C-alpha cells in the first residue's frame, strides 16, 4: 500500500478532473459518456494506444532535455530549436549519404545528436563564458533555428516535386520499423496503422541512461552539485562553466530523439513546422515529473494519451472544438499536478480526527 501511495494522489486528481471535464462537456451539450469513450479508445484499442505512444515518444526526449538542464540549475526553453537543428543534421545525412542499414542508422542518429548538442552547447557556452542568461539565449536561438530549418528545407534538400515546403524523402536504409511491422513478423497484429515505431524503445532507454548519468556518474554528480549550489561547487573544485556547457550539450543531444521519431520513424522527410511545440510541452512534462528521468516516462505518457484522447473527441463530435480540447487537457494536467494540495487536504483531515 505504501508503495502505491505516490500514485494514489495523482490518480485521485485524475478522477476529479474526469468528473469536472464531464460536467463541462455536458454543459456544452455533449453526451455524458464521450470522455470515457475517448479514454477507452486511447487505452484499450490498438489504434488509440498506438497514437498515444507515438505522441508520448518525443515528449520523453524533450522532457529529459529540460530535466537535465534543470538539474544543473538551467532553464532550457530551447529544446524546440535544438530539435529542429537535430532534424536538419539528420535529414542532411539521410538524403545525401547512401549507406547500408548498419551504418546508416547509427550515423543518422549520431548526426542528429551532434546537431542538437551543438545548438544546446551554444546556449551553454554563451551562458558560461559570456554570462548571458540562458532563457533569453535559448529563446533567441529558437528563432535562429526555425529560420535555419526553413532555409535548409527550401535550399538544401527541398523536394521539387511537391508544393509543400518539405525535404526530399530519406533513403530507404535510414527508415526505422514501425511497431506494427515488427509484431507482424512474429504473426501478431498490434497498433494497427499507427506510426509508433522503435524510437519508443530508444526513449525508454534514454530515460534510464539519463537516470544513470545523473545519479551514478561523477559527471552527473557534478552537474547536480552545480545545479543546487554553484558557490559550494566552486569551493570543491567543480567547474560551474564546464558543467553548464555539458548539461546544455546533453540537453540538446537528447532532442535528437524527436527528429529520429518523426523523420526516420514516421514521415521519412523533414516537413516545415512538424513539431507541435514538443520542446515547450517538454517543460511541463519535466515539471510534472519533478525532473525525475523515470517519472518523465509516465508524465510524457500522460501528456501523450491526453493529447490523443482529446483529439479523438474532436473527431467524434463537432461540439468539442480545438479550444475546448485544450481546456480539458489543461484541467486534467492541473489536477494531476495538484497532488500536493490533495495530500495536504487529506492529511489535515486526518489530524482533526486524532
Amino acid at each position, binding site marked *: 500500500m505504501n508503495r502505491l501511495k505516490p500514485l494514489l494522489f495523482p490518480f485521485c486528481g485524475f478522477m476529479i478532473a474526469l468528473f469536472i471535464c464531464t460536467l463541462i462537456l455536458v454543459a456544452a451539450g455533449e453526451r455524458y459518456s464521450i470522455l470515457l469513450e475517448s479514454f477507452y479508445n486511447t487505452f484499450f484499442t490498438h489504434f488509440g494506444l498506438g497514437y498515444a505512444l507515438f505522441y508520448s515518444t518525443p515528449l520523453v526526449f524533450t522532457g529529459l532535455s529540460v530535466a537535465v538542464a534543470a538539474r544543473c540549475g538551467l532553464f532550457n526553453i530551447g529544446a524546440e530549436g535544438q530539435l529542429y537543428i537535430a532534424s536538419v543534421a539528420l535529414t542532411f545525412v539521410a538524403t545525401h549519404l547512401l549507406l547500408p542499414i548498419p551504418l546508416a542508422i547509427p550515423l543518422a542518429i549520431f548526426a542528429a545528436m551532434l546537431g542538437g548538442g551543438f545548438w544546446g552547447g551554444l546556449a551553454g557556452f554563451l551562458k558560461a563564458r559570456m554570462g548571458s542568461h540562458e532563457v533569453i539565449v535559448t529563446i533567441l536561438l529558437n528563432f535562429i533555428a526555425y529560420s535555419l530549418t526553413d532555409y535548409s528545407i527550401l535550399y538544401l534538400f527541398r523536394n521539387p516535386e511537391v508544393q509543400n515546403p518539405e525535404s526530399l524523402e530519406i533513403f530507404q536504409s535510414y527508415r526505422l520499423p514501425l511497431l506494427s511491422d515488427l509484431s507482424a513478423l512474429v504473426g501478431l497484429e498490434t497498433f494497427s496503422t499507427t506510426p509508433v515505431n522503435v524510437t519508443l524503445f530508444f526513449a525508454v532507454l534514454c530515460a534510464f541512461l539519463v537516470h544513470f548519468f545523473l545519479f551514478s*556518474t*561523477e559527471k552527473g*554528480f557534478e552537474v547536480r*552539485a552545480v545545479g*543546487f*549550489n554553484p*558557490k*559550494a561547487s566552486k569551493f570543491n*573544485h567543480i567547474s560551474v562553466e564546464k558543467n553548464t556547457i555539458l548539461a546544455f550539450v546533453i540537453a540538446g543531444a537528447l532532442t535528437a530523439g524527436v527528429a529520429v521519431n518523426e523523420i526516420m520513424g514516421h514521415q521519412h522527410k523533414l516537413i516545415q513546422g512538424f513539431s507541435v511545440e514538443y520542446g515547450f510541452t517538454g517543460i511541463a512534462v519535466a515539471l510534472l515529473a519533478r525532473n525525475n528521468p523515470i517519472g518523465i516516462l509516465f508524465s510524457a505518457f500522460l501528456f501523450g494519451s491526453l493529447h490523443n484522447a482529446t483529439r479523438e473527441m474532436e473527431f467524434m463530435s463537432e461540439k468539442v472544438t480545438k479550444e475546448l480540447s485544450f481546456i480539458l487537457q489543461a484541467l486534467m494536467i492541473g489536477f494531476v499536478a495538484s497532488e500536493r494540495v490533495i495530500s495536504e487536504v487529506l492529511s489535515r483531515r486526518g489530524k482533526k480526527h486524532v
Partner: protein
Amino acid sequence: MAELIRFENVSKTFGEVKANHGVSFSIHQGSLHGIVGENGAGKSTIMKILYGMYPVDSGEIFFQGKPVHFKSPLDAIQRGLGMVHQHFMLVPTLKVWENIVLGSEPEGIRLHPSEIISELSLLQKEFGFNLDLEATIEDLSVGIQQQVEILKLLYRKAETLILDEPTAVLTPQEVDSLFAKLKTLKQQGKTIVLITHKLKEILSWTEFVTVMRHGAVVETVETKSLTENSLAEKIIGRKQKPLPKTQTNVSDSHPILELKNVSYDKLKNLSFSVKKGEIVGIAGIDGNGQAELADLLAGVGFPESGELCYDGKTAVAGKTLPLAMIPPDRHAQAAILEFTVEENAILGLQRSPRFREKVLLSKTKISDFAKNVMEAFDVRPRNCKAIFSGLSGGNQQKLVVGRESEKNAACLVACHPTRGVDIGAIEFIHSHLISLKNQGKGILLISSELDEILALSDRVIVLYHGSVAGEKIASEATERELGLWMTGATA
C-alpha cells in the same frame, strides 16, 4: 518576584524526533531569564510553543497563573508576549516606521504617517531608543535592524520579550549595546527571555538560567551560583575534555604554504607562511580580507600580483592547490544542503577512483565511506541517506571536517571552523585540529573568535585591511595587544 509563566510537563514530537519531553520550569515577572543548551536541545521549540507557533502534544502552560493555549503568535501578542526571531522578520524595502506598524496598523482606511511617527517618537523616548524612523531597513546594520524588531514588539505593548539567539549576527560592540538596552527595559518592568548557546552572555547578564539538553530541562538555577565550567558541564552533560597536548618542533620544518606579497581584491601585499606541524591563526574583525583569503586558497580567485606557493611550488592560474579546506560559509560554500549526507561526504572527492565500480559511482562504496566518516567524526543521526539540511549545525560541520580530513592533504585551511556550532562539536573540532598538527600537517586557522585562535595556534597573525597588522607567538600574545592591532594600530 511573582511567577509569570510556568511550563508543566510540556512535550512535543516532530515525526520521530522528540523536540521537547516533560519540560517544566518557571519564568519570573520582571526577570532576565536565560535558556541555554546545545543546538537541537529544544530551546527554540519550547519558546515557539509558548508563542503559539506550534501546538503542544501534552502538558500545560500557565500564564499569570491561568492555563493558556495560544493558537497563533497573534494570540500571544495580544497577551503581551513578543518574540524576536533568529532571522529577522522585516521587509527590507520598507521604512523603519512602516515595518513597526506593519500588521498592527491603526484603524481606518488611510494611514496617517505623521501621527504614527509622532506616536513612535514618544515610544522611542520612553524606552530610550534613538532610531531614524524614515530610514529604509535594507540600509541599516544588523544591530539596528534588531532594535527595530524590539521596538516593533514594544509598539505592540509587549510586556515579555523573547529573543532567540540575538547575538549570533552582531559585532562585539553591538552585543554590548543590545544588552545595555535589555537591561534598561528590564528596569522598566519588562520580562526578558534570552535563548542562546553562548555561556558568557548567560553568565554576565541573566538572573536565572534554564539549562536544556536533548529536549528536556536539566535544571533551572540562579545564575549567581554558576561558573563558566559548571555551566558548560551542565550543558554537555559531562566534564569538558582538556585539549590534547601539542608537540612543537616546528622550527626545522619547511613551509607548506607561503604567500609572498600577494594582492587580490581586499588583500594588499600579504605575506606569511605556514610550516608543517604548525597552526597559524589569522585573527581580525570580519571583513578585513578573510573571505578573500579563503577564495584565493580555494582556487576561486587567483593573485593579481605576488606569489602563492604550496609545498615549494608556485601556484599556476586555473590549477587548484591540493589542500584541504573548511570553507568559511558552511551553507553557501562547504556543502550542498539539498544533497544527502553521503553525497556531501564525497563532495570534492567524487573523482577519486575509490568510489568507482568500473565507470559508475558505486552506491555501496559511497555509503561505506560516509558511514566511516560519520562514525569517526560522531555525526548524528547516523543516517547517511538523510538530507544534509536536516542535520544540526554542529553535525553538518563535523561532516565537513571529516570529509576534508579524508583528503589527507599536507595542509588544512580551517575558516571559522566552529562558527554556529555547539560546545560538544567545538571541543571535538578543536582536538581534531590539534591531532592533525601533531601528525605534522600545516594548519591555517582563520577565525574571528580570539579565544579559539589563542587556544590553538602557535603563531597569531592579525589581518587588518587586507594586510598583516602584527604577528606574535601565541603564548606571548595578549588579548589587549591583538585587539589593538585588529582596530588598526600597527606593531
